């Protein structure tokens, strides 16, 4: 390996060392620190003139400090006449909108560490199975509700005659951008004007809270700093690659994950892969396809709260639907869609539901990122409530901010499998060695650096891993 220089940032030194071990070289000397006023200072200890430079920095820890440190390092290498500068970001920061829960007024709901967590969404998740003892309130639940709804929609007055949202079609859910569902929705009318309420609504009614997306900005900043190439793993949105004017190699964790499932999960042939939200369905489905496993989906959605009035509101009452292999696919979804149309002014609530059968099965939740852990801990509870025998969580980037680790440790997740794109020492400390398995991605990164340096194809890494 001649002419190659690898620098590591402050965020994840152990991964840098492992990647360098795989390449058979030593990380190059760089001094990283801060001036007394808080500005980042760096000094590069060896020549980079006409060298192929790789700077490894994960977007974890103190994100903004680490990101600026990366930018300054890239810029320093560029101005020191490096021939090519590549940013290696195992976890790409600012690649998604935050999925922290918000209050109805749009303020972030950041929970403080608690003794006990409930993992319930509000209102409670509807249970479509016999586990609920509630009797149906209506005696005449038609066999085919979907058709019935569509018929009734035609009887609506003209003003309300809109095409029904095609919630029954799985494809529309699959291709829905995950960020969409994460933008906090602020109801237009506020009941009591608190600070935030008046902030966003009182003086300018009709202005919807709009959250800036930092994606393009981050891409442009990297290019501005002088990056010629970016290597990352499991980008939250694959579309993110399009924000860059430079090549972006998005590596996949999938081969490593597949390998783990095959060799470490007993009776994996009977397991069910579960995507905790619609945005990740494709990711989970592709692993399920490759291993020929069955697949289930947990669907989070915001919908208008159902009024207590209608006697046949099967959605809130939960039980009583004919049990089939596709418990929720048709019926209650179609029903609630119609409610949303007729009660558009009512409050929005978030609810989760499971599509697919997990009874007495081992479930493997697959997601690219766990930050606050709200999504997966709720998913795990839902799966256990539906009769899953064991719940694994297979995560690429375990950021675990705030009190996420405490939530996970109290949740129904039996084992969490996570890669070392983000340091996981604390995860092991909190959850214990038996409940955490850290997968090593340094070989994939090492090999991709080797191949990019030598000008070889890296597409083989997408399929087979390393």
């Amino acid at each position, binding site marked *: 390996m001649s002419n190659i220089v690898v620098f590591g940032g402050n965020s994840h030194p152990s991964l840098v060392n492992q990647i360098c071990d795989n390449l058979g070289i030593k990380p190059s000397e760089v001094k990283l620190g801060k*001036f*007394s*006023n*808080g*500005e*980042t200072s*760096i*000094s*590069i200890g060896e*020549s*980079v003139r006409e060298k192929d430079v790789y700077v490894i920095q994960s977007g*974890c*820890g*103190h*994100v*903004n*400090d680490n*990101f*600026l*440190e990366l*930018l*300054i*390092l890239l*810029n*320093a*290498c560029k*101005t*020191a006449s490096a021939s090519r500068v590549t940013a290696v970001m195992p976890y790409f*920061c*600012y690649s998604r*909108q*935050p999925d*922290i829960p918000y209050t109805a007024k*749009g303020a*972030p709901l950041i929970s403080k560490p608690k003794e006990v967590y409930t993992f319930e969404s509000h209102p409670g998740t509807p249970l479509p199975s016999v586990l609920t003892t509630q009797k149906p309130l209506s005696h005449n639940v038609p066999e085919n509700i979907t058709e019935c709804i569509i018929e009734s929609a035609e009887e609506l007055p003209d003003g309300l005659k809109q095409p029904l949202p095609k919630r029954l079609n799985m494809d529309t859910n699959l291709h829905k951008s995950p960020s969409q569902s994460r933008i906090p929705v602020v109801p237009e009318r506020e009941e009591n004007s608190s600070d*935030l309420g008046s*902030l*966003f609504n009182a*003086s*300018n009614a009709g*202005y919807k*809270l*709009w*959250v*800036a*997306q*930092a994606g*393009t*900005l981050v891409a*442009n*900043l990297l*290019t*501005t*700093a002088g990056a010629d190439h970016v290597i990352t793993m499991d980008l939250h949105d694959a579309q993110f690659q399009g924000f860059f004017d430079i090549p972006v190699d998005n590596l996949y964790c999938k081969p490593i994950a597949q390998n783990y499932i095959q060799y470490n999960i007993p009776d994996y042939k009977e397991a069910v892969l579960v995507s905790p939200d619609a945005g990740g369905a494709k990711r989970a489905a592709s692993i399920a396809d490759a291993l020929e496993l069955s697949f289930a989906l947990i669907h989070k959605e915001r919908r208008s709260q159902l009024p207590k009035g209608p006697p046949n509101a099967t959605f809130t009452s939960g039980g009583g639907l004919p049990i089939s292999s596709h418990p929720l696919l048709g019926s209650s979804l179609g029903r609630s869609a119609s409610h949303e149309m007729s009660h558009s002014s009512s409050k929005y609530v978030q609810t989760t539901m499971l599509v697919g059968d997990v009874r007495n099965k081992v479930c493997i939740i697959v997601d690219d990122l766990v*930050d*606050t852990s709200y999504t997966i801990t709720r998913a795990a509870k839902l799966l256990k409530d539906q009769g899953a025998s064991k719940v694994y969580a297979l995560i690429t980037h375990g*950021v675990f*901010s*705030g009190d*996420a680790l405490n939530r996970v440790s109290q949740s129904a997740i039996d084992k969490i499998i996570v890669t070392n794109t983000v340091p996981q020492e604390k995860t092991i400390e909190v959850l214990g060695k038996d409940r955490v398995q850290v997968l090593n991605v340094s070989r994939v990164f090492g090999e991709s650096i080797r191949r990019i340096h030598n000008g070889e194809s890296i597409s083989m890494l997408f399929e087979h891993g390393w």
Partner: protein
Amino acid sequence: MATNSIKLLAPDVHRGLAELVSKRLGIDLTDIKLKRDPSGEVSFSIGESVRDQDIFIIMQIGSGVVNDRVLELLVMINASKTASARRITAVIPNFPYARQDRKDKSRAPITAKLMADMLTTAGCDHVVTMDLHASQIQGFFDVPVDNLYAEPSVVRYIREHVNYKESIIISPDAGGAKRAAALADRLDLNFALIHKERARANEVSRMVLVGDVTDKVCIIVDDMADTCGTLAKAAEVLLDHRAKSVIAIVTHGVLSGKAIENINNSKLDRVVCTNTVPFEEKMKLCPKLDVIDVSAVLAESIRRLHNGESISYLFKNYPL
């Protein structure tokens, strides 16, 4: 409906200067919400429409979490840009990383240039700053930069609060000689210089005084005070040369690290900073600190920029 009016944006922390500017202009600060995720990332939303408006983002960058402030500023600029603002002006009185403006050793980053590029990339159309460490930094930008001077405000302060007829202006290093000499000319005072040999950043080794300070009130003038080690040492040197008393006037009082301790233990009578850097809480810890308010200069420059008037008047005169 007024079109293309001034919108003032400021982050939710350190908005003291922005509030003063807003008061002076008679324009309320625009409602914004900056969220810091538990993971540390910044997300930002503006509470009202800014389409086709003239945006001024007032950002005070002090010591400590500089990088967070920089990212917040960039996200705010970018958000305004994508929200179809007509023009975005970043008002950054204390320009971050201004001291890393050259390759002082091999492979050192020119971070000031990187900051300039990043601001432009984010969508900034204009930059207003004050007393840049090196005015050449203006050349790093592809967009217009207005480098305001604190000098008129400082002159006013000296006239009103110091017995300036018995004073002498001191530059604590050769680099600041020009600034100090200009101020001395304005006030028609004498001028002396301290030459120092710097061993490492934020550390001072030996000082030599050039000029006579006997029985004078010494006014040390500098653009930035960081740990205040230099100022404390300079005060000692001046008093050793039979100066009557010593005060320091700096534009950007970053006052990081042991600054407060250094000032309290030093022989300085007073340390006066402008409010380009937030240091309200430090004033409680240190009775020797005093403030020069520059919000009037910034407010006037914002008004003139918006109306397309000349700014150069403000370089020499304090606005009424």
